[in-house]
């Protein structure tokens, strides 16, 4: 039971694959590209096998494996998945090959290093989602920064050094507080348990009993670290810089998966470990989330750089996810989880599309564009679908998430006021404004910039990159049950932690 190797294999494929890649002659760039793609596809196939092995009726951790690691401290290599982490694992293994394929042409120098770092990044992200030991989690959480740092710093734009250092230090700063809290919690747990423990499942039974003030501090340390990663307003300013400077593949991974690590952490650790503090902090954090929704949208609206616009839209969208998490009912958390996937798909697609046009024109200034509908019609259709998905048009994926989150926050007993939802729902209006305005300026009108004439429409490689994303955008939009079912039981389990507290309060 505790010794299922599947997940370890999943981590091993990109890890070993990446290391083996280093032995290929760096001149053989195409061989490296194809190998990287095959390795990441293999990981995707394995994650599908995991999906079919997964039992959606079970809310606990499955396919677990535990190997004792640092025996004195009872730290072990302990991995496993529940519904929520499975969805994010699938998202990661799905997005990674697409980003590798998308960089086929845009990454021309140091292809080997790039592919290696991308695979290491995948290991780090997967590790974060499958770790069931806080120490192990922390290792992956930090390790993942390194390849991202290099991806921005080596293949980024003009300000790449500034952006990569800012990204690194900003997130590192948050993580250190989390490390302190992890140690504190493990030490605290050694009294009732009789031994030091970083085992998440064991700590689930300890955390809720941590007395008020201490629990609040621990919660704050964890939440702060996650809030930076999300990013929650006002800790978001690393994001536009990192996004704008990162190469397309980096932006896609950053938006598609990395940001989800923050919201994942909130659900995985903050809510069940510190339910009382979560309830106490919920109004404050929800207010920040809502400020993020509106503020992110308004600032996105006035951007002149397409990539920055999409970056700020992430601040807005992730605000919805955080609101869903802290509304703490089944509708809202299910909505938050599906919205993490949705944001990965729609914002991933938007970044890919910005990258596709940037490769041709080498500008991201919206003002330079105009009238693309005449020149690259297929591209414009793709941009429309991605924008509509991000706007939350019913029938596409974004709507499902937003609707569930807002419905949940409206009836939330923890928030206990309609005003949260009323303000958050204005984001629905602003999203339409900033995306359609961008779309209008880029796609409609006359061609004003002679440089744009003769642009090539999307080629078949680019079709292959985007088509799978669009399939899921529509799939989640009209039949979300496939995905909601996966996380249903694990969501209910999180809710149970909250409910025990609420019931205790009434006594």
């Amino acid at each position, binding site marked *: 039971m505790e010794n299922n190797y599947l997940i370890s294999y999943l981590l091993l494929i990109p890890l070993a694959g990446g290391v083996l890649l280093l032995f290929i002659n760096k001149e053989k760039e195409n061989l490296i590209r194809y190998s990287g793609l095959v390795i990441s596809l293999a990981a995707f196939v394995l994650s599908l096998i995991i999906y079919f092995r997964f039992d959606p009726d079970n809310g606990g951790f499955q396919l677990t494996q535990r190997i004792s690691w640092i025996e004195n401290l009872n730290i072990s290599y302990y991995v496993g998945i529940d519904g929520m982490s499975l969805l994010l694992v699938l998202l990661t293994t799905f997005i990674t090959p697409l980003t590798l394929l998308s960089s086929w042409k845009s990454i021309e120098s140091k292809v080997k290093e790039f592919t290696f770092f991308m695979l290491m990044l995948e290991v780090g992200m997967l590790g974060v989602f499958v770790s069931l030991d806080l120490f192990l989690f922390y290792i992956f959480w930090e390790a993942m920064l390194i390849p991202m740092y290099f991806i921005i710093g080596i293949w980024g734009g003009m300000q790449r050094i500034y952006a990569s250092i800012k990204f690194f230090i900003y997130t590192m700063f948050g993580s250190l507080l989390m490390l302190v809290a992890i140690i504190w919690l493990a030490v605290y747990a050694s009294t009732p348990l009789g031994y030091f423990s970083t085992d998440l499942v064991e700590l689930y039974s300890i955390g809720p009993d941590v007395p008020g003030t201490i629990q609040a501090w621990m919660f704050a340390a964890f939440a702060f670290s996650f809030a930076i990663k999300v990013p929650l307003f006002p800790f978001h300013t*690393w994001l536009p810089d990192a996004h704008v400077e990162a190469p397309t593949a980096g932006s896609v991974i950053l938006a598609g998966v990395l940001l989800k690590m923050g919201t994942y952490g909130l659900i995985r650790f903050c809510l069940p470990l510190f339910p009382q503090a979560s309830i106490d902090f919920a109004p404050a954090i929800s207010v920040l989330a809502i400020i993020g929704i509106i503020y992110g949208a308004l*600032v996105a609206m006035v951007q002149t750089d397409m990539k920055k616009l999409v970056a700020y839209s992430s601040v807005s969208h992730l605000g919805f996810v955080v609101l869903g998490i802290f509304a703490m009912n089944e509708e809202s958390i299910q909505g938050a989880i599906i919205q993490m996937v949705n944001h990965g798909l729609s914002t991933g697609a938007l970044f890919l599309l910005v990258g596709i046009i940037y490769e041709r024109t080498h500008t991201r200034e919206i003002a330079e564009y105009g009238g693309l509908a005449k020149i690259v019609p297929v591209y414009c259709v793709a941009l429309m679908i991605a924008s509509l998905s991000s706007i939350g*048009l019913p*029938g596409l994926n974004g709507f499902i998430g937003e609707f569930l989150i807002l*419905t949940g926050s409206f009836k939330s007993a923890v928030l206990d006021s309609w005003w949260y939802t009323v303000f958050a729902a204005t984001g629905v*209006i602003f999203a339409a404004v900033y995306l359609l305005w961008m779309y*209008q300026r880029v796609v409609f009108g006359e061609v004003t910039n002679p440089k744009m004439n003769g642009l090539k429409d999307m080629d078949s490689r680019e079709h292959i990159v985007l088509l799978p994303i669009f399939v899921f955008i529509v799939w989640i939009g009209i039949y*979300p049950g496939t995905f*909601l079912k996966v996380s249903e039981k694990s969501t209910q389990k999180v809710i149970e932690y909250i409910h025990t507290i609420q019931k205790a309060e009434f006594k």
Partner: protein
Amino acid sequence: MIDLMYLTIILPLTGFLINGLFGSRIKNEAVIGTIGSGVIGISFIISLLALFETLSLPEEQRQTIINLFTWLNVAGINVSFGYQIDQLSLVMALIVTGVGFIIHVYSIGYMHGDKSFWRFFSYMNLFIFAMMNLILADNFLLLFLGWEGVGLCSYLLIGFWYDRKFEKSTTSDAAKKAFVVNRIGDFGFLLGMFLIYLTFDSLNFSEVFLKANIFNIPEGTFDLIALFLFIGAVGKSAQIPLYVWLPDAMAGPTPVSALIHAATMVTAGVYMVARCSVLFASAPVILLVVAIIGALTAIFAATIGFVQNDIKKVLAYSTVSQLGYMFLALGVGAFSAGIFHVMTHAFFKALLFLGAGSVIHAMHEEQDIQNYGGLKKYMPQTYITFLIAAFAISGIPPLSGFFSKDEILWYSYIHGNFAFWLIGALTALLTAFYMFRLFILTFEGNPRFLRRDSSAGHDKHPHESPKVMTIPLIILAVLSAIGGFIGIPEVFSGDHGNQFHNWLAPIFKDADKKLNFFGMHSHFEEILLMSISVAGAVISILLARHIYLNHPDIAEKTAKRFKGFYNLLWNKYFVDEIYDAAIVNPIVKGSDKVLWKISDNRIIDGLVNATGRLVEAAALQMRKIQTGVAQLYAIVMMLGIVIALFWIILSL
């Protein structure tokens, strides 16, 4: 056939996919047009057969639900792609597919030669798909899917000619404005759905309406639900204060204006309120608000229509005004009268727009009625059908508009109050006047486009449109003429009453019960009021004829004498300008100058970077300690040892 009603959803979707994916390769206009119109035509036949089948059923079996598959099932939310076929949705389905089919056929002629012919038909099919979802949905969420879907199609079609200028800006500006203003309404609709779910723990119509009937729910909750839903309707159906997008929506091709912005989509709000009649009837305060907004919009828009010179713009304001009528009907609790007007309005307003399209086509895109004149001899079929539509909208008996409009006026009087009737009647007079101003300036009198030949480029040789366009006009003219006979009021039809009303009665019976109207009114009163409004309409028409045909100087003089008021109307009360100055510009400028450039860049990011610099500066100072001089290190070490020794000694 009722069981096959889901095909009316699937078929337009298929048409959209075929023309959308392969249209650019098919290229042949006949094939694309046939596919595009054909799928709608078949949907119409299915709807018609379903209607006959429903008619043969006893009243209590006239509701069928077709459940395709589950859409969303989380906690208490359980909604499907489920379609409800009943008296109300069948009426709407027939209007949408019937008028829709006619307009599709007309478009084959109108859009002939357009480089994006296929794109036009794929969007139109997508629109019908979304609209059918809206009217057949058996739950709020699916209705909302259609609701936003039609908004998207409206957006795509308003901006169809994406590289064209429109008035002071571009078609894409108009398209974006329509979408965004609609989203403001949708925001209200969303809140309405949340509150419905919170209150009734369901989003399915049958369950919600049943619980609304039997549960004991405070009136305040109903008020809020109805208010939120109404905000949605105000956006979609272009009522005050969110009507501003509809006149701009005229940037789209004329068949689009006919189908989406006159006959079908804009009436979605009316449909939705009628569908939720139980909820609105439980919130009498909001019902009054609906009536007031409707009445105000009706007269407000009519006054603007008075002075506009763009043929489509006059029709656009007329549409806003007629939609106001429909809301007035709903607001006074005359739900079936509202739906009846939806139907007749679909006939005559679609006809007016298609007629206008025929004229614009003939006049080479000229839309200013001041540059028309005397077109009747060039395009007789357009002329006669347009005349029928103009009579119908003016409420001349026995054309369709007369019956629906008078029913609304009558109910405003008996259920509402005299003020509603008066505003309604005044609006009717204004409508008759501006409609015939438009008609006479276009078709009667001497041509005014000839004299401009010397100055304005090429000659204009107006001609009648091809048959593919005129036959749709004729069909709609027949419908506009006789379409009202299915709703002849009791005062004329005697014992079996108003048939349209009877048909819809089961849908509205719970709402009627809640509203509980009483009071007796004589037939004499009804006929008196009817006579007054008809006489008023006739006088208005004659007045318009007198002024614009024989004494055009009167119009000019009046405009000069009341220059201030004329300017106010001509500039549409400056509402767009006020919105821009009060809402749009402050948000955009504030976001740019304050939120982004100051708050984000200076304050938040400034703090972040300042922290970084602080650490750096501190490190720079600390660095000075590391001088690299070994002697200094030795001294510091010695000092350390001494201090440590002292400490140890002292602590002993």
